[in-house]
């Protein structure tokens, strides 16, 4: 006999369902008298350092239809590459930047929008720089477990070409699914759950 390992099992995920807004963005769905503001609505203030950017996108299903009930969260480093988190050991993050945003898809179009700053460079585990990126997490009705992916920037070609994660994607023709498109002042990052353009999702 050996000692049992006694690890617990992670709680199984269940879909966020169509009414995730009630719990996560109640003001958005018209429940305005419980919380002053929905969490994750604003990531920046007037004193936030760095270049302001707008990120927009839509989650699409396997038929190319917009997913109108999705909830999207993002997590990113500040302009200097530091995360606003106690687990960030490399330096102090900008106190005027939360790094975390949450946005429900528009109920008519499915589009989400984040007003944020362009993230700085963060090191990979071996110390090599990772290209600037924003981590995305998507839940919706029909998604049994939240989906993680990353958005990279189209104007960072050299950094993207050297990125330790982008370069190890076996099917290199899928890399463009992780790179936003620049449309005027807006970075557009559409997420395809399925199909020819299926976004690369991560098991992190």
């Amino acid at each position: 006999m050996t000692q049992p390992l006694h690890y617990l099992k992670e709680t199984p995920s269940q879909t966020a369902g169509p009414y995730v807004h009630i719990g996560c963005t109640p003001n958005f769905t018209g429940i305005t008298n419980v919380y002053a503001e929905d969490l994750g609505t604003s990531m920046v203030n007037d004193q936030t350092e760095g270049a302001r950017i707008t990120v927009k996108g839509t989650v699409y299903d396997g038929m190319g239809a917009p997913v109108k009930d999705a909830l999207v969260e993002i997590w990113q480093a500040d302009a200097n590459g530091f995360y606003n988190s106690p687990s960030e050991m490399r330096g102090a993050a900008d106190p005027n930047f939360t790094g975390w945003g949450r946005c429900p898809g528009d109920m008519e179009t499915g589009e989400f929008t984040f007003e944020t700053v362009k993230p700085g460079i963060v090191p990979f585990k071996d110390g090599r720089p990772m290209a600037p990126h924003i981590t995305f997490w998507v839940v919706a009705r029909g998604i049994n477990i939240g989906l993680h992916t990353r958005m990279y920037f189209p104007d960072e070609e050299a950094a993207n070409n050297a990125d330790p994660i982008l370069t190890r994607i076996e099917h290199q023709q899928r890399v463009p699914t992780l790179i936003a498109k620049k449309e005027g002042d807006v970075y557009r990052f559409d997420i395809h759950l399925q199909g020819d353009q299926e976004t690369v999702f991560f098991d992190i």
Partner: protein
Amino acid sequence: MSNKKVETGAFYARDRAWQPPAYTPTYKTSVLRSPRKALLSLDNTVSEITGPVFGHNQIGELDNDLLLNFSETGELPVGERIIVHGRVLDERGVPVSGALIEMWQANAGGRYRHKKETYLAPLDPNFGGCGRTITDENGFYSFRTVKPGPYPWPNGVNDWRPAHIHFSVFGNGFAQRLITQMYFEGDPLIWKCPIVRSIPDEAAVKQLIAPLDMASTIPMDSLSYKFDIVLRGRRSTLFENRREGN
């Protein structure tokens, strides 16, 4: 604030056989919303190890009291009064303090307060259906609400959701992010539900069923259910590879 040392290790790999797969055709909406290509496995970098922190100052006094946090007149919602409580632990059994838990649910009749909700059960003017709380230094949380009713949903011609409360949980790293649902002991609808059955392992389903907890009831006031939540554990950073001069 606790004096616990901040942890910076990568999270244990997720056990994908314990978690529901993306594609579960008996839950029809998953058919077109499930990635079909392999996920890219990624040992955590600082982008996944870190996560936002929510302070107790962001949480209002009534946020975890769904009996009182919506009603403007102070009148109570209809339904069985219950307390839901438990702990957030990680896979090592270590309590997760400072975890943000957001919960949402239907009212006692099975009706949600949402623009897209169409079930004919009535709204309860005294029930909003949302709440939130943060775990204490030992990982404990609790909230007060009414027991939600089951409700029908368009999937098969006659599918009903068992009574459930939705939970959104933030641990202390973004890779721990989890949304799930809590079910109630003894509900015969649990094992018929296509969403529950997206979870392949029966033992995993049982992890979502909260037992009646008579020890924590309040006599002549509220029943109680106990629901513990387990988030991914962290590796120790003591033995991580370090590059020379780093």
